[in-house]
């Protein structure tokens, strides 16, 4: 692809958006919802196992969760809450996606369409399949809307990147350094989503869903910002560590861990050796690892289904245990303490639901749809029940 070719494709998508005219958000939501199962049934998605490095059983578990984000009623509700009285949408939105987890393109396209803009989605290198597959699915149900979507991919080409970074709105996801470097070159408004983590808060005085907690750790092989890296425990941390280890072991039978590179295995070994040196309780195997520590301070793990179990004597002190803007999502079996929003948490949900965000998930504390339509100055935290 050339810069001229990319510019032409963007212009065509903008024209298509203009032609779409009074396409109502109801109709858009209906088309997106209808496209979701078609996308999920696309045989091309089978190739994701190789490119993403995730086991086919893992993909079978996570891709339906992505499709479920495009629930028609939920999208209509989202538009009602965030998408009215906002004036003209941006002509087009550029989304430059990370490659840590597959199918990021699907919610990105959906939000762009609901915002009423043309959407250009540059896929991450480990999933160049989802975006064109979703556009195909959309074209089958609503060709006019599909014409407003431009899925693209190139490995490294800063000239092409710069075309996207000229968008009125650029949504950037990836490691902090990558996002910062891209944001510096953007000429329009930037919505940057850098490195963040998930965490669990479990009170052993309430019911504990260990199977759900294991899913919160293991889905997407812990590569995403919703994956739990630590589990704060009010009560019996030893019991929770044992319960989590058992659940992760069981889960590994159903969802075998992805094959790990020597670098990933070395990272796990380094993590475990440091834990063992410090006297932490370590349970580890091919299923992952649970490390029980005594200091409640948040530190991310090395991924690959590894989690730190940390004691939390006083739940009210949870916000002090992690640095600002480190935690994106908290999965909990008790009401969350005050102060999480001020600390940068974007989403609080029940244990077991961390990896099943709704489309309305206010990523980075920005309204999912509203931030595409206007500058958002209020930090938002969603509490799901």
């Amino acid at each position, binding site marked *: 692809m050339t810069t001229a070719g990319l510019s032409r494709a963007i212009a065509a998508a903008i024209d298509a958006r203009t032609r779409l005219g009074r396409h109502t958000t109801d109709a858009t939501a209906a088309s997106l919802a209808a496209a979701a199962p078609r996308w999920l049934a696309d045989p091309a998605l089978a190739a994701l196992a190789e490119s993403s490095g995730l086991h086919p059983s893992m993909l079978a578990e996570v891709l339906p969760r992505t499709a479920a984000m495009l629930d028609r009623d939920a999208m209509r509700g989202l538009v009602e809450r965030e998408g009215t009285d906002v004036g003209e949408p941006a002509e087009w939105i550029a989304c430059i996606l990370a490659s840590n987890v597959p199918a990021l393109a699907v919610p990105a396209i959906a939000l762009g369409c609901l915002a009423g803009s043309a959407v250009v989605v540059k896929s991450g290198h480990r999933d160049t399949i989802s975006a064109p597959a979703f556009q195909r699915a959309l074209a089958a149900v609503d060709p006019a809307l599909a014409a407003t979507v431009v899925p693209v991919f190139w490995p490294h080409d800063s000239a092409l990147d710069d075309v996207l970074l000229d968008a009125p709105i650029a949504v950037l996801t990836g490691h902090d350094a990558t996002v910062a470097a891209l944001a510096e070159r953007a000429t329009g408004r930037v919505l940057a989503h850098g490195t963040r983590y998930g965490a669990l808060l479990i009170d052993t005085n309430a019911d504990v869903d260990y199977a759900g907690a294991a899913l919160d750790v293991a889905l997407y092989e812990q590569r995403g910002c919703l994956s739990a890296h630590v589990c704060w425990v009010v009560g019996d941390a030893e019991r929770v560590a044992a319960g989590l280890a058992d659940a992760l072991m069981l889960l590994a039978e159903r969802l075998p861990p992805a094959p790990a590179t*020597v*670098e*990933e*295995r*070395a*990272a*796990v*070994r*380094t993590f475990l*050796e*440091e834990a*063992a*040196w*410090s*006297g932490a309780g370590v349970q580890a195997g091919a299923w992952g690892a649970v490390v029980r520590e005594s200091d409640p301070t948040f530190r*991310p793990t*090395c991924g690959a289904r590894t989690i730190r179990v940390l004691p939390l004597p006083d739940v009210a002190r949870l916000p002090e245990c992690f640095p600002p803007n480190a935690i994106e999502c908290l999965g909990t079996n008790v009401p969350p303490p005050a102060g999480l929003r001020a600390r940068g948490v974007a989403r609080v949900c029940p244990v077991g639901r961390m990896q099943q965000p709704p489309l309305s998930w206010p990523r980075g504390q920005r309204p999912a749809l509203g931030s595409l339509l206007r500058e958002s100055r209020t930090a938002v935290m969603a509490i799901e029940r």
Partner: protein
Amino acid sequence: MSHVAALEAAIRAWADGGVFEGFEEWALRAFAHQFERVAAYRSYCERRGVTPATVASWTDVPAVPAAAFRHADLATGPAEAAFRTSGTTGGAGARGRHPIVHLSLYRASALAGFRHFVVPDDERLACLFLLPPLAARPDSSLVHMCAWVGEAFGTSVEWFVGDEGLDLARLRERLAALAASGEPVLLAGPTAAFVRLFDTGFSCRLGPGSRVMDTGGAKGMPRPLSRPGFLRACWTHLGIAGYFCVNEYGMTELCSQRYDSVLADRMAGRSLAARRLVAPPWLRTRVLDPDTLTPVAPGATGLLCHHDLANWGSVSVVLTEDLGHATGGDGIVVEGRVSGAPPRGCGQLLVAMSP
């Protein structure tokens, strides 16, 4: 003679052309000593069910993770010095600390290795260090080593990193003067500092016998540069041939270093041997499978685990966060660091000193 004095004598004897023998015995002796004197290490070994009585071979001695130097005081006695790792993230508490109980043993080991691999011809050199002086960075093991090198092998010693970072103008001026005089030069420092010099476009032809010792990884590099590219630049910008360019691999946690084999091989008539990082005989490295911590097949990639007898006063066996493979029977190739490991390396000295 105490054990440590005997070890130092053995190292000095090797430096003078003798043979270093008895690695196994030294390793077991060092383990018994460290197990007895370093409480945190003893506790770690006991948790793993290992004591001097259960260890039959040097390969059985438990390794501490490099991170242990960030968390505990690993000293067998009062430290004569303490060196800090050069990571700049995470604050001072995230930096490792290696207490040096036997500074003279460290000096003997460092100089013996340097002499063998960098000045096997016993040349005396004008020493130009692309580093801050000792007074500015007394906690840097690399700066300490270079100061010793200057004393031992230098006709003069100059340092080129100050409060304002690398003083490229003064360096270029000095290099030009030395090139004109033909005096052989040792130019040593982080690889990143060399790249900054090259990027100024400066070039000269340093005198015969001049050499480069570079160290550190990509951290702090102004741009990516491959090893062949680095060697070409040493020729283009300094007039130093590739076989006089010796890469050093060291860690604050170790008292001994590995060096590029190229110069020692050339002096020994093995010019065609492949470049690899070789070590003096009191430093051994095993390449371990990350899952099992058993040795990988020859040539396969794994975690590097060093056994350094010169670490007599701390802990001899260190499991690093470095990945690499063994090569050529006596060498290793370092391939990189475990993802997520704290950044480190001597290039950080430049980062830390830069305004």
